[in-house]
């Protein structure tokens, strides 16, 4: 029963990492340059979940296996006056779609809530077990 608490905590961590990634995608949805200031647009990140605890994959739980880079093509926007525009006047914008990010965010936040409810129930079950001793 105590292992359920660890399981729930691993779910919370995984969903939070997912939320961080999604927030980072949204923040950078118009970033046309990389950290070095070169005209390389931000690539959308996504998390890859795998079953098992982060430290020990044989234990029940979930962990973020990796944060991947979305290989889909960048959005091209016609902005001839932009500093980062190419010869044809197009600027490469990140391959981030706001509606996709928001949908994923909603899913992540609901999953987080489900995990919280699960932990609450587990705690309450444990306390009812402890009452057996009284």
């Amino acid at each position: 029963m105590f292992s359920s608490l660890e399981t729930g905590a691993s779910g919370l961590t995984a969903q939070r990492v997912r939320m961080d990634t999604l927030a980072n995608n949204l923040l950078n949805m118009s970033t046309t340059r990389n950290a070095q200031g070169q005209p390389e647009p931000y690539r959308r990140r996504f998390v890859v979940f795998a079953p098992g605890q982060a430290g020990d994959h044989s234990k029940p739980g979930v962990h973020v296996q990796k944060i991947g880079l979305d290989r889909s093509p960048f959005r091209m926007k016609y902005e001839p006056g932009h500093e980062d525009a190419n010869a044809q006047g197009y600027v490469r914008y990140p391959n981030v779609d706001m509606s996709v990010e928001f949908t994923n965010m909603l899913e992540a936040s609901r999953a987080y809530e489900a995990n919280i409810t699960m932990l609450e129930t587990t705690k309450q079950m444990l306390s009812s077990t402890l009452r057996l001793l009284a």
Partner: protein
Amino acid sequence: MFIERMVNQGNLPLIERMMKMTARRHEMLSNNIVNISTPGYQQRDVNVQAFQKMLRERSAQRRVAGPGQIRFDDLDPTQMDSDGSKQGMLFHDRSNRSIEGLMSDFSSNAIKYNLFTELLRKQYGSFDNVLRERVS
């Protein structure tokens, strides 16, 4: 020997086994819930019907053999894992995961667990009364 017979008659061992089973199921269902967004994850569950059938058979045997003769503690719910996923076509990995179904299974399982702990507590309470030679 006397205590052994006392605790191995009536529904005490049945309650204890059911508690064990619901606790095990709680672990499996919580693992299903945290893996709700894991692609390709196969949900797992305890086969409740099969476990209860085993309990029924065992208690029918006990009725013939008399109290204390048949033991229940070898009935292990961890052996009863069944693949809880119902194949669906909604997701690309063909797992039919629904958070609503999982959460309702989860909470009804928790309520059952609480019921069994409460029953067990009452049973222990009556033992306590017997040992102290007083009525409630």
